[in-house]
């Protein structure tokens, strides 16, 4: 579970953390990929004509729809900036939530969703290592992108998009790349998470609680760093689990929200920023010792 939350957080971070285009529609991409593979591989079959496809076909199809569908519906909204983009992305999430329930419930399972989906890997331990490997592969890939010149441009877009454009760089082209990468990794997380759970429902996939979990993981960890959202994802999952014996129901969510709020207000660069400050302080001390004895 934590590994998947990390995948979602780093994939959200690729788009929103690096470029500053805060997306509220990330579960749209995750759920889209999840629903495609779920519908096509469900025991009841794609109705009609009752086709059940193997996972090695449904999973790539799920990814293709996440990227393709995301580009078709989502990408035009990147022409608008700031809160307008966020609102448009949130609208997509709301729309797909309604559509999944209202349109063809025989196919999507309606409000109850689909369950009894085949597993990619069986057994708790193999599942853990599989999701861990998947998480590391995605995180390392995104970390590499963030460290490259691509990362520099995306971060610069977050700071001042006009100046990047005035540096001869097509910001739209680079934002589009970040979005596709974000959609692809969200889709990968989405399809495997769906088969890991063995079920999918609109209340789970398209809920705002799920959206906040992803965003809080990235923000608490440190946006635009990849490593930060990794820590954020684990922090969020573990704090919720460790608090389980001590706090019940909504109180657990209240506690982690309070921690998240504290960090956002007093340490907006998240855990990554805190760690960076400590390292910088240590380095300055060392330089001081070297210079002044």
């Amino acid at each position, binding site marked *: 579970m934590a590994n998947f939350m990390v995948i979602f957080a780093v994939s959200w971070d690729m788009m929103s953390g690096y470029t500053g285009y805060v997306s509220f529609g990330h579960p749209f991409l995750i759920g889209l990929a999840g629903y495609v593979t779920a519908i096509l591989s469900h025991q009841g079959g794609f109705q009609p004509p009752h086709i059940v496809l193997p996972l090695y076909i449904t999973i790539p199809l799920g990814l293709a729809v996440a990227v393709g569908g995301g580009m078709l519906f989502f990408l035009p909204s990147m022409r608008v900036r700031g809160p307008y983009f966020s609102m448009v992305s949130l609208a997509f999430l709301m729309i797909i939530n309604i559509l999944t329930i209202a349109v063809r419930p025989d196919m999507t399972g309606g409000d109850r969703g689909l369950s009894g989906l085949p597993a990619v890997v069986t057994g708790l331990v193999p599942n853990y290592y599989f999701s861990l490997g998947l998480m590391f592969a995605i995180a390392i890939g995104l970390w590499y*992108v963030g460290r*490259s*010149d*691509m990362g*520099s*441009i995306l*971060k*610069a877009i977050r*700071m*001042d998009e*006009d*100046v*990047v*454009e*005035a*540096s*001869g*760089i*097509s*910001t739209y*082209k*680079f934002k589009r*790349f970040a979005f596709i990468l974000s959609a692809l990794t969200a889709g990968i997380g989405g399809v495997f998470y769906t088969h890991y759970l063995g079920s999918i429902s609109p209340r789970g996939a398209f809920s705002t609680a799920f959206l906040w979990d992803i965003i809080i993981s990235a923000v608490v960890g440190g946006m635009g760093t990849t490593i930060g959202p990794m820590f954020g994802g684990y922090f969020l999952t573990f704090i919720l689990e460790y608090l389980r014996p001590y706090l019940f129901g909504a109180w657990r969510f209240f506690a982690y929200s309070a921690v998240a709020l504290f960090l956002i207000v007093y340490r907006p660069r998240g855990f990554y920023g805190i760690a960076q400050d400590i390292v910088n302080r240590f380095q300055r001390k060392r330089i001081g010792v070297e210079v002044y004895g």
Partner: protein
Amino acid sequence: MAKLLEVQGLTKKFGGLVAVNDLSFYVEEGEVLGLMGPNGSGKTTVFNIIMGDYPADSGKVFFKGKDISNYSTNQRVRMGIARTYQVPRPFREMTIFEGIRVGSIAPSIVKCLMAGAGAHNAVVTKILESVGLKERLSMYPHELTMGDLRRAELARALTTNPKLVLLDEIFAGLTVAEIEEIDELLRQKIAEGLNFIVVSHDLKALGPLVDRVVVIHFGQCIAVGSFDQIVNDEKVKAAYFG
């Protein structure tokens, strides 16, 4: 001499306000043009239109004889036009070196992903040295003086390998010593073959630098000529002193 940049009949309205009104002028190869006018006369709007930040309501912009009116900002920059901003706009979370380096990155996704560590660092260092920021490479924008921020603006423009640079109030907020330093720097770049359009309220600094001046008032051209002709022009005096 051939015209490097030409604007023809530019008009831009913001609601009921006519910011630029049927404005035409040109810059020749090897020329430094001054763009003067009282506050709110439309100088920065003209720069924004030339750069493609927003489209003109009517009129055209030509660069090296080509109509670039429908080009995006990044296309115009890649053709050889760059600018500095009236209020310096450095990338606030990046060091001066990192920020200036952004301008030197190839605008290709594949090249961006494949570029090794330290790619084109030497070029950026050379540009920063040429504008006198060699000692400030690892500093953040908030640690710099206004003079250094102006130099950084110029460095960022230079990383795009421009033919023409639009300088918006390059002398604003500087001490007398800093103005002299920037003036010296600009003269070096002019000698290297760079063309400038300079907007400045500091007439003392602007005068010796420019070959020709265009004066605009309420978005309209009211005078064109050498600096000496312009300062003695009755329309210009009226625009500035009422």
